[in-house]
């Protein structure tokens, strides 16, 4: 078995009486895509928020590359190498696409406490940003103000920002949310290419994409993992089908 990059142990979180994360244990191995599926409200995003540091868990432990990161902030975890995308598009709408991505590259290239030189003309940052944009297929839109992008393009920008920070792991919260058929297929291809480099924890509702990308699938229901295994195992797992896949499979 390959090296464990990210490990979640005994994670618990409740909002008042509502348990949103119920004793979750999960491992992400190097070179792997681990998909997290489950019905709406199962607590998938809440789990990603806890892994990335947006929310802090009530109990449990998150270790990343052998280091306990449970107490670190969102920014500190990003520096440690946890890159993420957001379910609800989160970009810098007034900056150009290039500047959105260059800012992510800037974090990795020396200090940002530089006060005089014009950042927009730093070639190294712009080139790194263009490389990231080219990988996602957004390079032709580099000069556009991000707020003016189409919805699908904004989703891609989200991903370009995440990889420009050169993370060690990608946490992807529904990267295909709201995308059309063709768009999600092309994004699936892109993610397949990226998978070799970045271990991924993926939340996605698009089952076709999940079964193409994932090496391992966990099914989350009411905050708890009810089934976990290879895509084929999960596809045939009775609990998983009952919880999530069932109706779709029957109707298909």
């Amino acid at each position: 078995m390959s090296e464990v990059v990210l490990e979640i142990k005994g994670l618990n979180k409740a909002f008042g009486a509502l348990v949103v994360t119920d004793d979750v244990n999960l491992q992400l191995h190097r070179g792997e895509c681990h998909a997290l599926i489950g019905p709406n409200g199962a607590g998938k995003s809440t789990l990603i928020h806890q892994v990335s540091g947006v929310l802090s868990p009530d109990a449990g432990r998150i270790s990343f590359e052998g280091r306990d990161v449970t107490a670190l902030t969102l920014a500190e975890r990003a520096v440690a190498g946890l890159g993420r995308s957001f379910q609800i598009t989160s970009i810098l709408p007034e900056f150009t696409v290039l500047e959105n991505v260059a800012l992510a590259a800037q974090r990795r290239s020396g200090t940002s406490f530089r006060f005089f030189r014009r950042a927009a003309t730093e070639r190294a940052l712009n080139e790194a940003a263009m490389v990231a944009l080219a990988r996602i297929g957004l390079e032709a839109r580099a000069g556009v103000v991000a707020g003016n992008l189409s919805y699908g393009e904004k989703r891609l920008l989200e991903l370009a920002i995440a990889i420009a920070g050169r993370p060690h792991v990608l946490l992807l919260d529904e990267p295909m949310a709201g995308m059309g058929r063709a768009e999600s297929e092309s994004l699936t291809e892109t993610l397949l290419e990226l998978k070799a480099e970045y271990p991924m924890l993926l939340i996605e509702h698009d089952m076709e994409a999940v079964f193409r990308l994932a090496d391992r699938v966990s099914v989350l229901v009411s905050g708890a993992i009810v089934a976990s295994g290879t895509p084929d195992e999960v596809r045939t797992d009775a609990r998983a089908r009952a919880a999530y896949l069932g109706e779709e499979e029957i109707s298909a």
Partner: protein
Amino acid sequence: MSAPSASPAAAAKAPAAPEARASRGPLFVAAVIFALLAAIPLVSEVWGGAWLTSLAVRAMILAIVAISLDLLMGHGGLVSFGHSAFVAIGAYTCGIMITEGTYEMALILPTAIAIAATFALLSGAICLRTSGVSFIMITLAFGQMVYFALGSLAQYGGDDGLTLWSGPDLFGTRVLGSEMGVYISVFLLLLGTWALVHRLVYSRFGRVLRAARQNPTRVASMGYSVLRYRLVAYVIAGVLAAIAGVLWATHASFVSPSLGAWQRSGDLIVMVVLGGMATRNGALVGALFFILIEETLSAITHDWRLIFGPLLILIALYARGGLVGLLDRVRGPQ
């Protein structure tokens, strides 16, 4: 280090980044404004006299403060309602040191900067943990603390303020004793502040600050500690305002706690919004316009704010982007 994010092949395929183009219009506007300000001492020889230069000096000092506030408000999205406290800190540092027999500006200015920076660091570390209305209220509270603290300094005039019987020296000379010396110093510091803040805003630091105004969570998820960048901006803005305060004391030879009153902070916010937030010349234009209007209207009537109020409403309604935005629309798109 980790694996590079892209293979060399991908790097070779990546097209060149598009060039960012800057409009020359704002530079032209600034050149006109600074030329006019430079000409005022000459004009005052034939018309206006000391009244005119004094008015211009006051306007320029407030423009320095407004530009420093715009760094926080316009670019950082941090609406400080206690910014005039830093002016008061600078002015009182100058006033107290002169009263105690230290006349050298080369000592006064660094002292004022150090005190303002310390106060900004301590108060900023607290108020920057909040945002929105809470941030406004806490900066207001810190501002009021300074206001009442200065009013309680009985040995330095208390609420009545403190008269400086002598102006500061500059490296042992009496340069700052002359009206012309003060005018040139204030003019150069305004020019320097205007250029400095523009450089800051488009530097790496400024890019993080501007990004955090749009989406702090995204900036944090890139790995930036938003608080640290905001705190540095808060300190820089505070120090610039304190320098303006030292100039104010030098020019007016009188300091009082009212320099730090919250109404002053409110006026500063009005200047920035009036001129146009987060624009190259907005805060500068806003401050100069504000003082000009205040001076002319208050000459007509004691209740000048009755006229100024509706004027502000009109500008807020019809000139989004402030006076600078209005100017851009008149000149048409570039």
